[in-house]
């Protein structure tokens, strides 16, 4: 019943069946919805159902990321939609970013949602290389946006990186050092001129302690359109 809506978006890549959505070579039928607030799980579930899939709101507590509860949950679904904040209620001992990165290592499509608080973006950036899609929850409350987000995940998991996600070795310059908290860097090759704040624990010690104007190389997805998409891998000590 939803196929008309979906096919207008991406006629060849996605289509809906009775229950489940074909995305590339996969059929996504069951989607785990992970959030520490029951109402939020339900609300996200409506979008999942309206998109033609089955929503599995994950009841807590999920304990730590290596727990049997998490393993059971992830083994029983084809995709995951997860909020970044999970640790407030007695729900999970990990953040959504950690879980989505974990799903990535298991080859499971997972979408992370957050309400774009600056501090969150900085924490998420540490895992961002393994988070293909980061969206505002109300964005994926629209079924066709949700499907498109899943498509992006599946494409990346199958090795087709969007240009905004492909890391390239590139120059990174330190523009400010904030004692005990982190460094502010600029990526000259990236199209934006925003400075990026990186907390100390997200960079190697020699970067965290570098003086202003020191230059390093790291692999950065310089094709990204917005600063919150940037991630930094494989720093090289100059």
């Amino acid at each position, binding site marked *: 019943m939803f196929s008309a809506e979906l096919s207008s978006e991406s006629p060849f890549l996605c289509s809906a069946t009775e229950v489940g959505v074909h995305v590339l070579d996969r059929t996504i039928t069951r989607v785990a919805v992970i959030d520490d607030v029951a109402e939020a799980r339900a609300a996200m579930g409506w979008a999942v159902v309206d998109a033609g899939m089955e929503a599995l709101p994950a009841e807590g507590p999920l304990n730590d990321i290596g727990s049997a509860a998490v393993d059971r949950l992830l083994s029983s679904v084809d995709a995951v939609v997860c909020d970044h904040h999970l640790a407030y209620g007695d729900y999970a001992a990990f953040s959504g970013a950690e879980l989505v990165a974990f799903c990535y290592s298991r080859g499971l499509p997972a979408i992370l949602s957050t309400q774009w608080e600056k501090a969150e973006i900085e924490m998420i950036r540490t895992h961002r290389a393994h988070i293909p899609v980061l969206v505002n929850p109300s964005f994926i409350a629209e079924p066709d946006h949700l499907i498109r987000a899943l498509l992006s995940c599946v494409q990346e998991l199958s090795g087709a990186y969007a*240009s905004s996600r492909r890391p390239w*070795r*590139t120059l990174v310059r330190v523009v400010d050092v904030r004692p005990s908290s982190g460094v502010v860097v600029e990526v000259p*090759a990236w199209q934006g001129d925003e400075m990026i704040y990186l907390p100390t624990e997200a960079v190697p010690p020699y970067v965290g302690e570098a003086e202003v104007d020191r*230059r390093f*190389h790291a692999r950065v997805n310089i*094709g*990204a359109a917005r600063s919150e998409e940037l991630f930094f891998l494989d720093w090289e000590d100059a």
Partner: protein
Amino acid sequence: MTVVDVGHGSATVIVTDDGVVIVDTGPGSALLEYLTSQQLTTIHTVILSHADADHIRGLVGLLGARTVDVQEVVVNADSMQGSTTWRDLVYELDALERRAKDGGAPFTFTVGITTGYRHALGSSIELLALGPRQRLAALGVGNRDATGQEIRSNSISAVIAVDVNGSRVALLGGDLDDVGLAHLLDDASARPLRAPFLVYPHHGGHSSHRSNGADTEVFARTLAEVVEPEVAIFSTSRPPAGNIRAETVRGLLASMPRCRVVCTQLSTLCAAAVPTTAPAYLSDAYSHGRDNHTCCAGTVRLILSSGTLAPSAADHWRFIEAAAPTALCRVHRPGSAA
């Protein structure tokens, strides 16, 4: 010769059996993506038409990635010397030099392109700088020329002609502005500007630092009169970043009513809504707007020997008719019903 859809910015890649030359490098990873998609790993020469921070950034990215070997870098003018971005570039050039010493490919770096600069690619293709003149470049950014006009970095943007077997095929306009154009016109008797293919300066945006629509239209009309292009290629991106202007297209078509207009991306001025699909004629070569459906022509390929351009006029026109209800190239064509 390929004008790569790099989003906001420009990059032109010329591939021959005798080597690869790139003029301007766009921002971000677009050029790197393109080179990867075409499996081009050795670049003989990279030319920057001018040294604005934005252009240096692209080159810093190209050199840092190390996915391609760059053997020669030629940067026009040194107006950015002393800036942090310039030092970023020097840092990468140093690294390249160290690698060359360590047994890597040799490479050279030159600052300054002025009228008369030549770069031959094999026996048939030659790149030739028509501007800036030495004395304009020597005055440099921040000074005023003999007529009292302020020289900006766009004023001394290099304008490069592409000649095949001695006949002019294309003109790469860089970011040329009205001050720079005045100097080119001054020289036009010695160095004619006429070319069938024009890669339009400054992405079709404002052509004067006064950001004045009337000036921009006059510039377009004047430029089209002397170049007489059959095809004008605009490396422009969809806003907010993009900047092709209605005045530009109006001026161009006023002088050359039959000139074909080819834009890499689809401006919001041409279509308020993004089309539901990308145009079918996009090739395997990378186009920055492909995934977001913001391509118009996408990456544009011109076969220099035959003058064949892809996408073809018919395919491209069909897409414009379907997807761009307010297309500038249609609305502003003299005699158009709109």
